[in-house]
Each structure stands twice: as C-alpha cells, then as structure tokens.
C-alpha cells in the first residue's frame, strides 16, 4: 500500500506573550492508503494542531509534510487551497455549514467550486444526492441547516467531505458534539467509507470511536508516545473486544 501522508520531524511552535510554546516536537508518522487512523491524547497535547499542520490548514515551524508524495510545507496558500479542495475532505466537531444554503447545496458546494470537477451541475447534484442516500439523509436535501438534527448535520458534513472524492478525510472530533446514538451512526458511516477504500485521519477522545479505526496514535505534549495497530473493523461483534484491548493499551500509555 502506498503512503498518502507522511510527517517528518514536524515541529509547530507558537509564541504567546513572548514565550515560546512548542506544541509539536519532531513528530514523525505516516498514513497508508486505506487506513483509518485515530489520534488520541489528553487535552492540549497537540492533536488538533497536528491535524491542521498535516492537512495544510496551518503552517509548520520545522520539518516536513508529504501528501501523496508532494511536500506541502513549500506550497503557496493558493496551491494549498486547491489541494484541500480537490484532494482532501474535512469534518469538524461543530458541523460548520453555510447558514444561507440548504443541506444539499452545502454538500455540493466544494464540487461546484473545484476546477478539477468537470461534471455538469446536474451530475454534481446527482452525486451529492447519491452520497446523501448512502448516508441515509436524502430526505433533508432541501432543508435548511437549522431544521435538521446534529447527527444528520454531521452526516451531511461527511457527504460534503466526500463530494470531491478526496484521497484523505481529516476529521477533528467528528462526534464531539453528538450524543451516543448519533455518534455511533456517524462512526459507522466513516468506518464503512474506510472499508470502501477512503483514507481517514481523525482526532478523538472517545475510545468507542477509536476502536473503529485501524490504527491509533497516542500523542502527549507534542510527541507521539505510541502507536497501536488494531486492524480493520469489520462488524459490530468485534467492537467490544477492540475497545477492551485499546483501553488496555491506552492505560499503558498513561490515558
């Protein structure tokens, strides 16, 4: 399997009140195509910073990031924007969407904006609807974003992240703002997408979420403390066992 994302000696430093704060310290890791990697760690450990740094959303202080063989740290803002639009998908904890657009319009927006997408508007819409159907939210296509539940909205965000067939989906605590039932639904969908071949990197505090991933990276104080490969999640019957073994490993890490 080819490597889609590789961080090498990645450092990120913030200067706050003239004091240097090293959030990421020489982080090295890679993600292969088809993997679903969860990044876990205590609050303030640098998880989100890591996600934003490797996805080109935030600049890095030192080191390098390769996305599909291309170094993104040297890319200009415009190139990074194009990369995010065409090659990456994003899901955020807060389910951000444009308030004045309907759910379907929000989903197809990145495809309409992309210069790489050569399909007609009609074809884009059909693809958006197909994704919504797949995630079971087709009935809310024309709804306003304020008219749907949090779980539905997050699934809509997943659809939006998928619309340009990205190489990697980056998800920052995608279930953080959801209740357990909605959280399970969303994670099942993400796991399903992963089984179908989509590479996912997600940040989570939730063991139940991490247990559906193929690998877990544990980060403390800007350093990767350990990695745990738990294999592909195939069906719910495996879940309890995966959670248990993952919990044990996390305990060892100091969770």
């Amino acid at each position, binding site marked *: 399997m080819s490597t889609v994302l590789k961080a090498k000696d990645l450092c990120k430093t913030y200067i706050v009140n003239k004091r240097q704060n090293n959030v990421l310290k020489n982080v090295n890791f890679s993600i292969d195509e088809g993997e679903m990697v969860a990044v876990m760690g205590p609050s303030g450990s640098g998880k989100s910073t890591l996600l934003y740094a490797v996805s080109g*959303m935030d600049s890095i202080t030192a080191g390098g990031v390769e996305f599909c063989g291309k170094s993104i740290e040297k890319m200009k803002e415009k190139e990074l*924007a194009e990369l995010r639009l065409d090659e990456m998908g994003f899901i*955020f904890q807060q389910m951000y969407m*444009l308030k004045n*657009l309907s759910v379907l319009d929000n989903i197809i927006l990145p495809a309409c904006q992309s210069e790489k997408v050569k399909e007609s508007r009609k074809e884009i819409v059909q693809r958006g609807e197909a994704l919504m159907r797949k995630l079971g939210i087709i009935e809310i296509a024309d709804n*306003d974003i304020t008219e749907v539940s949090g779980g539905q909205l997050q699934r809509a965000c997943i659809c939006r992240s998928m619309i340009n067939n990205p190489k990697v989906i980056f998800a920052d605590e995608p279930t953080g703002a959801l209740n357990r039932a909605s959280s399970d639904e969303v994670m099942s969908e993400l796991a399903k997408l992963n089984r179908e071949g989509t590479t996912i990197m997600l940040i989570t505090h939730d063991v139940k979420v991490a247990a559906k991933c193929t690998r877990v990276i544990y980060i403390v104080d800007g350093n990767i403390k350990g990695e745990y490969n738990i294999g592909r999640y195939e069906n719910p019957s495996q879940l309890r066992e995966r959670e248990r073994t993952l919990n044990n490993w996390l305990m060892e890490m100091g969770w």
Partner: protein
Amino acid sequence: MYFNILKKDLKRKKTMNIVLLLFIILATMFVSSGLNNVLTVLNGTDYFFDKAGVGDYVIITMGENSVGNISNALDNADCIDDYRVETAVFINQNNVTRTDGTEINSTSNVALFQAVDNAKLNIFDKNNEKITEVNEGEVIICGKYMEKNNVETGEYIRIKASDVEIDLKIAGKGKDAFLGSEFMGNYRFLLNKNDYEKLLADETLSKKSMGEIAYIETDDISALHTYTTKIENIMFEGRRSQLSTVYLIEMIAAFIVLILSVCLVIVAFVVLKFSISFTIAEEYREIGVMKAIGLKNGKIRTLYIVKYLIMAVIGGIIGFFASVPFGNMLIMSASNNMVLGNDAGILINIFSSIFTIAVIVMFAYSCTKKIKKLTPIDAIRNGQTGERFKKKSFISLNRTKANPTVYMAVNDILSAPKRFMTVIISFFVCTLFVLVLVNTVSTMKSSALVNLFSVEEPSHIYTAASEEFIGDNTSYEKEDYKELINEMADEITAEGMPCTVGRHFIYKYKITSKGDEFAGNFFQGINISADEFAYFEGTAPQNINEIAVTPQVSEKINAKIGDTVTVDFGTEKIDCIVTGYFQTMQMMGEMMILSDEAPVSSHYLVGYSMNEIRFTDNPDEKEIEKRKEKISELYNLKDNEVQNAAEFCAGCVGVVPTMEAVQYLLLGITILIVILVTVLVERSFISDEKGQIAMLKALGFKTGDIVKWHSLRFGIAAVIAAILAAVLSIPATDLCITPVFGMMGAINIDYNYEPLKIFLFYPLVIFAVTFVTAWLTSLYTKTIKTSEVSGIE
C-alpha cells in the same frame, strides 16, 4: 469588574468600535448641522429681510424729477406705519470699466450708486456685519457683480458717466437684501459721501439720473396701491413676498442642502441602528455566558448601555464641534449672497448633539431588551446569529449553473434581505438625491426651459443687444426697432447665414380690473408673434383688445379667461379680454402678453430680450456653433453675448454653476457615505461570518473567492439601490423640483433627462465606489486562518 470587561471589549473589538465611533461622530455632525440648516433655510429670506430692514413694500423710481415723488405721494397715506427713502444715482453698468478702459460688463442695466451714509437699508459684509463706512476712493459692490465679471477686491474700477470720471478701489463685497439677487439684474455700489458728491456735482447726472428707493412698512398693501399709482417714474415696485421669490435660486441651493441634511440624518440613524443591533447581536454568546454565571439582566444591560453611552458622548462631543464648520460649508453656496441664520444659533447644534446621544442610548437600550427574554442556553445557542428558523431563499445552487461565489452572494441577499437593507436604503437615498439634482442641472443646462424665458420653440442663436439699442434711444418707436432688427437679419443673411431676427420687449402699463388698479408688465414682440408663446389654457391674444396672462397675474388682478380688464396705453384705454394662460419665469411670472397689434409706446418700455436669430436653412449643431463665432465677430460680441438655446436658458436661470457645485459636493458626500457604510457593514459581516469564512477556507476556497463573494454582495446591493434610484429619480425630480420652479412662475416643466447620466454614469460611480470599498475591506478576510475553524465560538 465592569470597567475591566468594558476596557477589554473596547480593546478587543477595536476596529468595530472605531468604525462605530466614526458613525456616531458623523451622525451627530449630520444631525446638528442638518437641523441648524433646516431652521436657517426655513427662516431664509425673512431673517435676511428683517436684519436688513426691507419692510413690506419696496418702490424704485428713476429719471428726471423723480426725487421727492415718493414722499409727496406717501406722506398722507394713513395705511403706512413707516417708510424710509434713500436716493441714488442710476448709471448704466457699461459705464463702469477697468482703469485701463477695458469693459467689465456690457449690459445696459443700470446700477445704483449711493453714499453709505445715505443708505436706509442695512448692507452686510462677508462676515455678516453691517457696513457703516466706506473710505474715500473705495467702493463696496453688492450682489454677484464681482464673481460674474471677474473683478476682485483690491482692483480699481472707473466710473465714467456724463462728464464725471472717478477711479475707485474695490474694498469688498456687500450683501444687499433688496438688490443682491441675480434676478434683480441691478447692482448697488456703495461709495464714500465725498465720492458720491463728485457724481452729484455733474448736472446731467443729478438732474436726469437720480432716483429713489422706498422701504415701506404697511399691513395694507391694497390700500397702499391707491397711493403708489400716483407716483411717477416707477422703475420697480414689489411686495416683500415677491422679493423673497427672487432669492429662490439661492434658496434652491439652500433647500437642496436641507434635503441633503435630512438624507444624511436618515442614513446616520439607519446605520447607527444597524451597527448597534449588530454588535449587540454578536455579543449574545458572551451575554449567555454572563447570564450562566449568574449576572442579572439589569447588570448586563447596564454594561452595554454604558459602553454605548461612553461612545455616544465621545462621538457626540467631537460631532458637535465638527458640525459647525460642516454646516457652514453646506450652506455656503446659499449664504455667499445672503445673510442666513436663525435666532437659536449654536443652541440647535448643542440640542441636536444631545438628542443624537439620547437616540444612540435608546437604540442600545432597545437592542439589549432581548437579553431579558433569553435563557443562558438560548443566548449561547441562538443569540449569536439571531437567525430565523424557516426557509430562507427560494433559489438553490443545485438548480442553477451559477458560479458558487456569485450564487452565495445573491443567495445571501435573498436569504437575509434585512441585513442588506441598511446598505440598500443608505445608497438608495443618497443616489436618488444626486440623480434628482443631476436631472435638475441637466434641465437647467438644456434648452428644455426655453419656453419659461421666451417663446415655445427655441431659436438657434441669442445675441445681446447691439449698440443701437443701448443708450438714449428712448425716442425710438416700434418701427425704428423693427428696422434695426431687420437690418441685422439682412447683415447676417448677407454673410451666408439666411435668417430672421426677432426679439420681445417688456412694457409697463396700468391696468384696472374689477375696480382695482395695478401696474403690469406686458410682452410684445417684433418679428416674434404672440402666437409663439406656450399657452397651456385658452388661446393667444389675436386682436388689439385681447391679452394673455400668467396664473400669477390672474390671481393678482383677479381676472380669469373671459374676464375683461382695462389697459391704459397712455394714449388710450382699451378694455381687453383675457384669452389664455401662459407660463414664464420672467419677472417671477408676473407677465402678460399683448396682441401683436396693441398700441405700444417706447415711453413705457422697461426692458427687452436678447435678439433671437432663427436660421431658415436648418443648420445642424456644428454649423450653429460656427455661426455663433461668425456673428460674434460680425458684431464684436463677447462669448457670453452670443448663445445657443441651452446657453440662453442657463444664463436666464443663472444658478447653474452653483447647482453644479452643489451637485458635485453632494456626489462627494454620497461617495463618503457609501465608503463609510460599506466599511462598517462589511467589517460587521466579516466579524459575524468568521466561522463560515474559516470553514470555506478549510474546504479549499481561496481568499480571492471569499473576497469575491463578499464584494459581490455589496455590488448587488449597490446595483439594486442604483436601479431603484435611477427609475424613481424621474418622478422624484418632478415631485421635488417642479414646485420650486413653480414658485418662480413655471407651471409645467419639460425636464431634460439624460439617460446615460442617470442610468449609467452615476449608478456606475456608486457601484464602482461600493465594489472597490467592499473589495478592499473584505481583503481583511485574508487574516482569518483556516485553523481558526476549530477555535471559533
């Protein structure tokens, strides 16, 4: 703690607070100067006339044996409370030259030369102080003589009349309530007593050119007419209200300032309401947190009200100080020639500033009302946007082929039109007002108003009176003038410009209607028929015993179409039937038309128009311009003495340069408002949409796309406002400006609308300014980082 929260708030939202403070300053400045100007303009001529002591009725007499006539007639008039008479020497304006002998003004209109000690009317200097002294060898010239003839303070002029020649240094300009208006056509020259006596030393001047001006205080003008009809050699007589109308041109500019002030006040309050409600809506999250930790509603409200009170007081004080020079600047176009003011003076500005501060605090109070109804959870969840929970837009990205950024811009306006209403209303009001003024100026500069100064159809060229008509030619009768005019036509035709030449003359005759006597002005033309005037009711006078009148005259003499009035032609009295109504702005609409056959005499001639040249070979505009030059050379006329129809109208209205200056001032203020509103609203929007912007950036939208999205929204709002303003400018012009022209005698105005200007040029200027400002302001979105998507509240 409150102080700390307040301090932090002012620091954290520095830009928004600065913009808001700027708007408070502007609002106070606009409201203060606006209200002061409203009062000043409404007081207008009354204030000026009272200060000058014009009285209720004014009479000018001129000519041999005219001195003493007024007193003789009025001494026993019991309807008069008081009257003051001043004497003056009347000399043709073309007798005033530069010291090297070059001409200043070729017009044969008379100017009044008067000793300052003898003046019974208060004349004011540029600082509105009464002029009480003029040094020997100096002169103060009233009205617009200096601007019009390009002479300046410090220059020397020469007065050469009969056998007298005096050189005088121009000491300054005077504001003359009676003769200061351009419409009166006569200027007053104030001299030192010794210089005035030098003029009187000349026998011809002291015998033939003396005259009197009487300022009469009376409550019964009808009774006064019984006495004034006995006064010989009346050159002019008029009521105070009639004199007010001659300042209408100045007052048009003043009223425009008034309407502008009202517009500015509306814009200021609309924008203030928007910015206060917007900034408070933005703070609902913080408000929710404060409520969650147990702060009471009253305390939270007080916090915000105190913040806005502090800003309002600071802005109000600065705005108050700025309002005085700003108000003076606005009213300057009208106050150049008038003493404008109101008795309240600066108190109005103080009151207005306090009022604005109170309104701002009231806005803040009403905007924070919602705090009371919200629970902490409501505030945190919904307060931030205050969005309604229903279908927003009827269009959909999935049903259009539009570019996403263009769609988002259009959709935002359709989804939340209220948010853009501030922009649309502000731009609409300002653009509409600019366009009304543009239409007015275009009309004044075109030949559209020709029927208000002459006959219905414009002539090709108008020329000033040639030498034959000037001077002591009062012995000329109609046939002599006709001969001169026909000679002129022959001369021009001989130069290869086949034409006819005509002109109309103004005669003053006594008329009797229903037992009352009046003095009336009548048109009669040579080579211009009575048929050629524009009659909006009835017909032209065809026979010797027929006349047409304006509605103003009809009302004054109480005679309608079909009624009979008696006209005293001197040699005979003829009972004339009123056959029709026409409109004119000559003599403020107080004019009548005689039939071509009426028995006129030059003894009663009080004025005449320019020569109207009509070419018989239908030349195009280029050819007319060429012929203008040829005629100018042929008769040795200056540029302004040979005019095409549009120039003739502009010259008659006289206010075009002032109106153009006001138009550009207004455009400048509109652009300033557009820039400020755009900056304020766009910064508010960016602040509100920070999360969405960061999200779009995270999804791969470039800063350029975000800038395009934001700029387009303002562009669309500007286009909506400009289209609305352009379309409504046509009825609005008619609605606002026709009554103003109506006061000067016009009934129907055929406006000259220039589609390119109103539908393209000015809307384009507003659009371009809006778009560029929005584009520059939205570049601020560059500072919003994609990573902020996680940190946004």
